[in-house]
């Protein structure tokens, strides 16, 4: 009996040790905006579940209220079981805690996902939302960026005043990936709008790794495409790579407080592969 109790205790201790301990690098201020970034996640395989568990562990100490989901939300099918196994179960704990997901469509996604209750797209392929005064998000459909979408985007940007402007979509305007690389045609269409209206940060996926790009004409770009999928050794570091990581699955945590955006990228192993602060230019006095 004593041997059994000791054995169970040892197994429990080993299991606890196996799950990485959260190592939060963000200020975790009381009234800041907190969110997560996950991308290319919808595999239904073990790494996605493990990222989900790790995100939940961090959520206990860093209560982000939503996650942006940068496309390729479901791979290989859109039946009920796909939604369940490739989204609802991996993130069950987060969903049960009230974390909302705001999705963008990827090239593996059926556009009817825009109606799915848990993606909060409100029936739109592209949409904007304002989770807190002073911060506006723009979800774009980079798989089908027709003139109507670009017209909508410009109007929304023009109306967003001096808010933090954060865009997210599936394809990366800047990427060091050997598989896909930069989406040059997308960049040609959207970068002028980013610059004209002061978009601060762009989150994307499509490449199955993490990359932080050095600011391009004042705009910060991140690729978070490794929250389920992973393509090892796929980054060809070049002059615009600030940080690249392609050895394990990852997700991001982000916090916005005033004119500062803090970020942290966490690997499935628990390793903190990147972190930092982005400071946007102070608002000009009226």
């Amino acid at each position, binding site marked *: 009996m004593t041997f059994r109790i000791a054995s169970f205790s040892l197994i429990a201790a080993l299991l606890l040790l196996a799950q990485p301990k959260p190592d939060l690098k963000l200020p975790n201020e009381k009234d800041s905006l907190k969110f997560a970034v996950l991308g290319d996640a919808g595999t239904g395989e073990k790494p996605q579940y493990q990222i989900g568990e790790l995100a939940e562990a961090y959520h206990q100490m860093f209560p982000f209220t939503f996650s942006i989901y940068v496309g390729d939300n479901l791979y*290989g*099918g*859109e*039946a*009920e079981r*796909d*939604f*369940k196994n490739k989204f609802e179960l991996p993130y069950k704990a987060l969903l049960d805690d009230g974390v909302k997901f705001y999705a963008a469509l990827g*090239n*593996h*996604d*059926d*556009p*009817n*996902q*825009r*109606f*799915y*209750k848990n993606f909060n*797209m*409100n*029936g739109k392929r592209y949409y904007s939302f304002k989770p807190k005064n002073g911060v506006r998000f723009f979800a774009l459909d*980079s*798989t*089908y*960026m*027709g*003139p*109507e979408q*670009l017209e909508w985007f410009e109007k929304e940007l023009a109306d967003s005043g001096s808010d933090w402007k954060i865009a997210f979509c599936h*394809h990366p305007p800047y990427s060091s990936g050997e598989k*896909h690389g930069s*989406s*040059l*045609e*997308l960049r*040609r*269409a959207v970068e002028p709008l980013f610059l004209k209206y002061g978009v601060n940060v762009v989150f994307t996926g499509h490449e199955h790794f993490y990359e932080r790009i050095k600011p391009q004409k004042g705009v910060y770009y991140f690729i978070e495409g490794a929250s389920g999928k992973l393509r090892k050794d796929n980054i060809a570091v070049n002059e615009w790579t600030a940080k690249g990581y392609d050895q394990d699955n990852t997700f991001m945590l982000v916090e916005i407080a005033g004119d500062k955006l803090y970020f942290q990228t966490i690997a499935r192993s628990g390793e903190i592969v990147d972190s930092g602060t982005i400071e946007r230019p102070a608002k000009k006095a009226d």
Partner: protein
Amino acid sequence: MRLLICAMLGALAAAAADAPAGTGFSAFQKNVNAYLKVHQEQEKKVPALKPGATAKDINDHKSAFGKALRSARADAKQGDIFGTSAPAFQALLARELKGPENSSLRKAVKDENPAKKLAGPIEIHINETYPSSLPLSTMPPALLAGLPRIPLDLEYRVMGRVLILHDRDADMIVDFLPEATPKL
């Protein structure tokens, strides 16, 4: 008489407002409008899909809407919508995609082109559901800007060198144009 001719020309231009003038897309636009009518009629027969839907709602709607459309278009065949505008599409895509100056557009269309995922040749059939195991091709903004505008219920997509018209809500291929693009 001159005034009458001017008025008629103006009316024709207005009717083909979505078709680039003098570029052979008028037949296509007419066929798209006819398809849209069928789409809207059949859409009314199935419960509307609303934001906040469950996975089951989405699948039930696609299934019901697809079934209604297939029934209404039982005799549909390849070319019904592209029609006599097919050469105009091929010419436009050749202009947009050929040559060293268009390499980045070609690259964008090739990226994750679903034909790459297939073991054998592409087989496409009218009224079939878009294969769920295949990604949708990405349509670059510059290419979409040059193509005739179509209602948001329809999308252009590429599979290999085939240009397809995809009914977004029914997730159905409603027409396709083989060898539409130059070699990518």
